[in-house]
């Protein structure tokens, strides 16, 4: 707009300042409305969360989005509805009772060729307008006041704060495993490595019980990570990130095992479980913790059991009993009844703790020599695949027995010197690639090709899940072991007779 050279000096500056204040005031109004809308969104979503309806991404994300949109709309509205200086001059005329002096001056100043400036009346007008321009106070013309929506926003915000204090805030708590990952990121390499090795040991035990090679590979990866930390090849947050990733892999492996129908020990490998285990145990009795029991806790008949370990314990004791009975200087085949009586006498109790104690005790006098065989196979090396498994065909039922694994085979382990001592596992990593890791095959797990054996199908029994207690399993396993070993012995006798002396 043309700046008039007479009569209106300073007026345009005052009107411009007033217009800026108007922009600010309108911006405050828009911001107040936006904040009020955002607060209402938070309030509604918080109320919804109290009744179980959770907004995706959290209520605060929606609130910030509402605020951002509101501010954008406010900016556009302020820009589009911005008055020109003539409108501001009209406002000033009304506000200060200037009898249209300012608006006339702004308009005449804006059209220099449409006004006869030589006219004494026009000149007198501009002088008069200039004399009154000092009355235009931008602060009085556009007072910046607290918008009314701001008061409503304050009330709603107070209500939201109260709701936030009342409702349980899971998001306030640390996510599961956060302390574990923070400990892994410890700048002290020794401390971080020790933690990682503890987790690796836990995972190896789990791998052994579940016969899960995937978990075994993950445990190896954890040990390698601990080695890198000690040797300071890595440290800090990358260690925590790698730990989290490996535990995620382990969790998926454990989940896949349970989904395949295998009985769960009651212990999982989620990050939260690992963190809880390491935080609550002193010397970390991995075996006792993995079994779901402690040495000091008395095992009740209705307490949760670890079927796999109990089965292994019973079978081991049965094997020992069989060996002791079979170890006769004559080398004659064992009498069936004598074997059954020996097995029954060997397990005088079904208490899992007593079974474990018996296992840990010193070998009973008269232990059979290691070359006792049953049917030509060394007894000590026979690994019995089995235990307890949920019957998928009979809901609510559990099958207990021998030779009922997924492969329904018995892996006969024979010490063969030419079996490879390690094998490679492929472990999927982030980004879709796969990493090859060598896994040492310990002697206990070396085996030849898996061979199917003609096992008597009677070496199993079926029960309901609610009857699966420690005492029931102890009796059942003892019965199964007896029938199994008797069956093997009978089978061996048949074979011996068929082949002849």
């Amino acid at each position, binding site marked *: 707009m043309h700046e008039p050279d007479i009569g209106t000096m300073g007026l345009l500056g005052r009107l411009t300042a007033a217009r800026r204040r108007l922009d600010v005031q309108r911006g405050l109004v828009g911001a107040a409305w936006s904040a009020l809308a955002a607060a209402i969104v938070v309030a509604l979503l918080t109320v919804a969360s109290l009744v179980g309806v959770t907004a995706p991404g959290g209520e605060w994300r929606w609130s910030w989005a509402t605020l951002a949109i509101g501010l954008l709309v406010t900016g556009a509205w302020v820009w589009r509805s911005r008055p020109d200086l003539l409108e501001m001059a009209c406002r000033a005329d009304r506000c200060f009772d200037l*009898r*249209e*002096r300012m608006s*006339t001056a702004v*308009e005449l100043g804006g059209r220099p060729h449409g006004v006869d400036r030589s*006219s004494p009346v*026009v000149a*007198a*007008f501009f002088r*008069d307008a200039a004399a009154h321009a000092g009355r235009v106070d931008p602060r009085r013309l556009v007072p910046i006041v607290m918008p009314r929506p701001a008061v409503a926003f304050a009330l709603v915000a107070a209500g939201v704060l109260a709701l936030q204090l009342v409702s349980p805030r899971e998001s306030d708590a640390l996510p599961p495993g956060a302390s574990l990952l923070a400990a892994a990121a410890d700048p002290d390499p020794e401390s971080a490595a020790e933690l990682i090795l503890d987790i690796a040991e836990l995972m190896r035990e789990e791998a052994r019980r579940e016969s899960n090679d995937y978990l075994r590979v993950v445990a190896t990866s954890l040990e390698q990570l601990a080695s890198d930390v000690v040797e300071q090849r890595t440290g800090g947050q990358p260690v925590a990130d790698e730990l989290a990733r490996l535990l995620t892999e382990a969790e998926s492996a454990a989940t896949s095992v349970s989904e395949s129908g295998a009985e769960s020990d009651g212990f999982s490998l989620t990050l939260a479980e690992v963190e809880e285990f390491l935080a609550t145990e002193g010397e970390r009795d991995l075996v006792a913790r993995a079994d779901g029991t402690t040495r000091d806790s008395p095992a009740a008949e209705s307490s949760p059991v670890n079927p796999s370990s109990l089965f292994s314990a019973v079978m081991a004791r049965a094997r020992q009993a069989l060996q002791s009975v079979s170890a006769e200087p004559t080398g004659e085949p064992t009498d069936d009844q004598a074997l059954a009586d020996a097995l029954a006498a060997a397990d005088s109790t079904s208490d899992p703790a007593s079974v474990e104690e018996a296992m840990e005790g010193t070998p009973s006098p008269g232990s059979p020599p290691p070359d006792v065989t049953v049917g030509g196979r060394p007894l000590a090396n026979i690994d019995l695949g089995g235990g307890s498994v949920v019957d998928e065909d009979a809901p609510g039922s559990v099958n207990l027995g021998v030779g009922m694994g997924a492969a329904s085979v018995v892996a006969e382990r024979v010490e063969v010197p030419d079996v490879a001592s390690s094998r490679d596992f492929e472990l999927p990593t982030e980004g879709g690639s796969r990493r090859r890791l060598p896994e040492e095959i310990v002697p206990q797990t070396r085996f030849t090709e898996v061979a199917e054996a003609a096992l008597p199908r009677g070496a199993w029994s079926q029960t309901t899940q609610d009857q699966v207690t420690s005492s029931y399993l102890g009796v059942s396993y003892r019965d199964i072991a007896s029938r199994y070993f008797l069956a093997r012995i009978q089978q061996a006798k048949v074979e011996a007779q068929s082949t002849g002396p």
Partner: protein
Amino acid sequence: MHAVETAVPSTVELDSQIELLQRARAAVAEVVFGQESAVDELLISLMAGGHVLLEGAPGLGKTLLVRTVGIVCGLTASRIQFTPDLMPADITGTMVLLQDSTGRTRSRFQHGPIFAQMVLADEVNRSTPKTQSALLEAMQEGTVTAAGRVHELPKPFFVMATQNPIEMEGTYTLPEAQLDRFLFKVDMPYPPEDVLDTILDRTTGARLNVAPQVLDPEAILNLQRLTRSVPMATHVRASVVRLALATQPGDVKTLERVRQYVRFGVTPRGAQSLIIAAKARALMDGRFNVAIKDLHAVLRPTLRHRFRLNFEGIADGVDAEALLEEVFHRTVGESAA
């Protein structure tokens, strides 16, 4: 309303002219006591170059007002008493035959009483429409045609016609088209008690107030040029447009009451009169631009005789001026308050 010249006085003369105007105003008000609004409206119409229709009961000082204004402004004045038998030639003049000493006769146009700078047409509604038209034609054209010759009326030329609202029997009411030629219709109300007391005191004593001459015809013409030079903002003019359209009963945006009760709305001439009068009012108020309040101040005298109610409005007792005020506030806004 006759045309005025476009030349304007110099800056030096402006302040003196304004000062003279204020002095003239005070001088008239000193003699015609208690009628300040009528005095202002007369002077405004003088500055605007318009004519005035004065309406009031007898004895309120209408003739005194006109004569005083004439004296203060230094204008030649004449008075025409309109009667039912008044002829047009009695107003405009006539051709007369004159015989000289040699016995030769010649004709000469004898100027009528209209050939004055200020004409008081008393009780103009008592004469016939034919006689009224002779006056109104002179008011519109500023000339008188007689015997085929055009005679210029003196400048400035100012007519103040009066109407007696009491004795309406046997009168010829001015038609709307003729009323539209008057810039103002000025009402002279009955004075209140204190004003009446002062009037009686001043006018019944031995000494009578006589107004001095303050202005002269040239000063009046200068003031008329200054009035037309007063600037007006576009949005103020736009408000006049909105007002004029809002008074038309056929307009789609007009008020329901206007559509129901109004017969004739404000004509373009009425809108012109409103603006010119507002300019004159601003100048008289010592300002040099037209304000919304100036429009409001001259609204009633300018438009009351142009804003006509229909039969339904008259029968329902609608106050035309109140309705006009309502339309003004609706269209122009609260800034007029």
